[in-house]
């Protein structure tokens, strides 16, 4: 059965994909739907949803919450995507090295990884962002720095098991180079768990970004969902919509990413279909 058919059979995954598609559409259409800066103060502050032309209400400066959510989608995806890619680059490289080389290289890399896992990741992210001062770059880098250890562990485990697989040994016996073996023989076969992990990492990164923003460690120039909750939380009693709607946006996106991740997991590893991917972040 093809990958797509297996994936499409999973109701949750399809729902997740639909939500993601909607959010992506919203991100793309934001400049059309709300052809103005989300920072623009367009009306009376603290308007409840539906009043004064504000679909989801207005915030403490009279900015449009709906516009913020639409424009923030891109930022959330950007933060999630870029930090995940960065974490993957680091994690896959280290994991591949550790798993393929084995021996002291493996030991050293794994100790290093364990070390990073012993430091509470959120605490480390907070410290890093505070040190580099909050900006989109420092947030992305910090999220990447705290997100790579699980990747390394997963990739290492895959490489370790694949390394002793006979097709890899066959490549060794054929005289192929080490890097060629790692990149063309092992890596393509280790992709499924990496893809699954990546989809969940994007979700985790979006959550992390919102948590950082909540503590006041967001990028002040970007309208992100986390920022919106962070700025709305202090007025939650007067204007619940300011934090509730961005919260729902985060929830839906993270949920969708998780559903898609599970769907991918089931479709890519049919034998382990029932083993739900839990990412240890």
């Amino acid at each position, binding site marked *: 059965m093809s990958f797509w058919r297996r994936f499409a059979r999973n109701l949750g995954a399809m729902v997740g994909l639909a939500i993601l598609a909607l959010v992506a559409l919203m991100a793309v259409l934001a400049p059309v739907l709300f052809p103005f800066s989300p*920072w623009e*103060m367009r009306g009376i502050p603290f308007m409840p949803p539906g009043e004064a032309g504000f679909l989801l209400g207005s915030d403490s*400066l009279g900015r449009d919450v709906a516009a913020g959510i639409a424009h923030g989608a891109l930022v959330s995806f950007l933060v999630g995507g870029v930090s995940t890619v960065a974490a993957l680059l680091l994690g896959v490289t280290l994991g591949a090295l550790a798993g393929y080389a084995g021996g002291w290289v493996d030991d050293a890399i794994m100790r290093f990884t364990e070390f990073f896992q012993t430091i509470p990741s959120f605490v480390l992210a907070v410290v890093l962002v505070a040190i580099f001062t*909050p900006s989109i770059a420092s947030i992305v880098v910090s999220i990447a720095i705290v997100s790579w250890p699980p990747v390394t562990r997963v990739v290492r485990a895959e490489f370790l098991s694949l390394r002793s697989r006979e097709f890899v040994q066959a490549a060794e016996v054929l005289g192929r180079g080490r890097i060629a073996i790692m990149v063309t023989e092992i890596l393509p076969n280790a992709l499924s768990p990496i893809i699954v992990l990546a989809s969940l990492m994007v979700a985790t990164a979006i959550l992390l970004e919102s948590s950082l923003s909540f503590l006041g460690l*967001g*990028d*002040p120039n970007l309208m992100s969902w986390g920022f919106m909750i962070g700025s709305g*939380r*202090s007025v*939650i009693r007067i204007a619940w919509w300011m934090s509730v709607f961005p919260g729902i946006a985060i929830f839906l996106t993270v949920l969708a990413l998780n559903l898609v991740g599970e769907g991918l997991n089931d479709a890519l590893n049919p034998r382990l279909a029932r083993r739900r991917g839990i990412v240890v972040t």
Partner: protein
Amino acid sequence: MMTEARKAATSALGRRTLLAASAAAPALMTLGEARAQGVAPRRGGVLNTIITPEPPVLILGVNNQGPTLIVASKIYQGLLTVTPSLDPAPDLAKSWTRSDDGLTYTFALQEGVKWHDGRDFTSEDVIFSIMKFHMEVNPRARAILQRIDKAEAPDAHTVRFTLKAPFEPFLLIFDVTACAMVPKHIYDGTDFRNNPANATPIGTGPFKFAEWQRGNFIRMVRNEQYWKPNQPYLDGITWRIVPDSQSRALALQTGQVQMTTSNDIEPFDVPRFQQQPNLTVALNGWEYFSPLSWIEINNRLDNLKDPRFRRAMAHAVDRNFIAQRLWFGVGKPATGPIASTTRFHDPSVQMPAFNPREANAILDGMGLRPNAQGVRASIKLMQIPYGEVWNRLSEYLRQAMRQVGIEVTLESTDVAGWVRRLAAWEFETTINFVYQWGDPTLGVERTYVTSNIQKVAFTNTAGYSNPEVDRLFEAARNAAQAEERRRLFSEAQKKIVEDMPLVWLMELAFPTIHDKRLNNVIRTGTGVHASFDDVFLSA
């Protein structure tokens, strides 16, 4: 004593002193007066209130942060305090005189005052506190105390200071928030900052330190040996540490606390509490501090060093919007470099009004033409890390500047990073606010004079320099007579507004919100920094 006081009455300040010492002293309301007003002070009850952020230590002088001042001012006392109109009023000194040449000040101390550990409070303590303790640990006080030539204690209850030169605002430095009296027998000869006794403050005030659970609460109890008979009225005060502003608002709303001060309540919550019938919202009590906020502009940089550009920035900002929309009417728009509640404010001096068209015209005149995106110039604004409202302010400024074609990029920092960059002049623009300490010489001069361009925060970090302004502040500092000073300061205000080294935004006010049953909360120019010995909870 009174005769000497009368001699001093020729000076404006001295005349008011006399009044203060007799009838107008708000801190000295007697039982009879209170009954006359229809509220009988009731003894008993604990005041539950909030303090944010948690003070690191409660020793005044060693630490002078806002929360420390509010809490520790119940434990410690100064020689004087100030009235809402910024005249001195008695505290540990029951009266004082100034010599005609303006050089010698003599204080008569209250008698029967005891430290919380039972030792007597004497003139020795005063000399030690002023000349040793604050001289070493307290940078703000030091700048003024260095003008003292000689400090003597003729007897146990008299202290005399002789200045090197006349200094008209001298008495403003004796408030508890500036120069608290500390016990000599504990601190003399020790390392003040690391004295183990810093964990258990000993003062003369109406409340004694009882317990401090870090991150949780500070509890103080009535000082039974307090030198004012039958006072304080309250059994104690408990300061809860509540880092989350909404939790604070809830606590106030539900009556878990009876008072909030300073930044406890965010401005947007204030209108709500003004509606609540059991609460009083007071916006006064900050006259002594008169915090003034502004856009700090690095006058050394391109564009920003051009007064026209700065004027354009000023024209772009709607200060009424800021006052109404961001601060919800708490505080008022600034008019110039000296806050209206500070002495020598000149109401005739007005900074450029909100007028984007004018701003555009100025920028056009400078040759800064908008590009395709409508951007004439780009600047960075370093956010001040003091909470939500300040972030909203920088977001507003970004939008406002964009309206006249100035693109603003925000930079985010925390307190340490902000102070470091401010001190190192590593910023283009930022927002700043400072206390004015009642007198331009004490709290305004430092921001504008060339001699104070230093790599230290809260100096003239903008790098503004105008020899004429320097001269005017210098003259005002040394002038012995208030009228002369008023003239000089008016002149200085005009010059500064012409140059617009900064764009002043708001004369800040901090709401003190309290239960209506809580009486006498704000009686002085320092508001909640008073000793609270006369505060009581009516039944």
